[in-house]
């Protein structure tokens, strides 16, 4: 992403496009395309095409959407899927605070901006140096990702429906790589790596012991306990 932020990733775009718009558009295309994998994996997990599209249109936060279908696909309950998706969405609250501080939006726009407050729009806005560019970056990435993410979710859901046995096509392997790809860029520094290892081990150990979907929530609880111990000054 940073490589795209500082050069001219798409030289064929009109010169009138500012760096923030260029960055927003290239992110929108890259992220939008993987809506195909979300759509296909959602129907593989047992959702219908409408449910896959409803998640992209209404929830519109990739990590939580993958969490929801990941728990359902693993045989978990709707309640466990709800909890995993909701906990994974907590970071969007932090993004909203950052965007509000950075863009100082008028109150009437806040209900709309909230829906477009995701990893990509926040990253594009915060990567810019002046106020107008931040605003352009937020909206270009937010709206661009929204349009393409929804379009390609539909394409993926229809394709996934037509594929037949998802295992034969390796779609369960695609889900594994998809989650690893979301996790990977966050593994910078000692604490995130330690948390990831602990969460992974806890999940593997509890998988055979509790109903599907619950290991994810146990891992979240262990992570929160880690945070509480760190906060009180300890070193777990």
């Amino acid at each position, binding site marked *: 992403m940073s490589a795209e932020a500082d050069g001219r990733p798409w030289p064929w775009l009109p010169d009138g496009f500012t760096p923030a718009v260029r960055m927003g558009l290239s992110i929108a295309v890259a992220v939008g395309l993987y809506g195909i994998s979300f759509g296909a994996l959602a129907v593989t997990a047992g959702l219908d095409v409408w449910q896959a599209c409803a998640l992209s249109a209404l929830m519109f936060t990739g990590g939580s959407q993958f969490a929801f279908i990941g728990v359902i696909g693993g045989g978990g309950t709707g309640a466990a899927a709800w909890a995993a998706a909701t906990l994974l969405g907590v970071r969007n609250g932090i993004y909203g*605070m950052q965007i509000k501080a950075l863009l100082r939006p008028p109150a009437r726009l806040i209900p709309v901006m909230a829906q477009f407050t995701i990893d990509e729009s926040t990253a594009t806005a915060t990567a810019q140096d002046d106020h107008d560019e931040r605003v352009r970056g937020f909206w270009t990435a937010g709206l661009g990702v929204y349009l393409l993410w929804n379009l390609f979710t539909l394409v993926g859901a229809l394709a996934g429906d037509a594929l037949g046995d998802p295992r034969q096509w390796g779609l369960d392997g695609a889900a*594994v790589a998809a989650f690893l790809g979301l996790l990977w860029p966050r593994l910078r520094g000692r604490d995130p790596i330690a948390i990831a290892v602990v*969460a992974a081990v806890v999940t593997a150990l509890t998988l055979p012991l509790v109903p599907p979907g619950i290991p994810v929530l146990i891992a979240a609880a262990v992570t929160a306990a880690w945070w509480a111990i760190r906060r009180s000054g300890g070193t777990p």
Partner: protein
Amino acid sequence: MTLWNWLLLAVAAAYLIKLAGYLLPRAWLESPPITDLAAALTVGLLASLTVMNTLGNGQSVGFDSRLLALAAGAVALKLKAPYLVVVIAGAAAAALGRLAGLP
């Protein structure tokens, strides 16, 4: 409750969390512990979901072609491949494993 009910509840929760970032007092959300918790939860949940999708088989653990997908995804990420390529690498590895007769 049906899957649709839980789906719509999750949609509502996702939106309310996004909105809360704009409406809750800044001093509360911006405090380092809350920022740390959000970052830690994201990492912990994604790591857990990765393992669950690799090994989970209902309420049991299964070692199959999904482990190849995990390895292929890691290699692609190490090579700084774009996200879509990472996902396709995972699918291809699992599909090839099955083609070779692995579970």
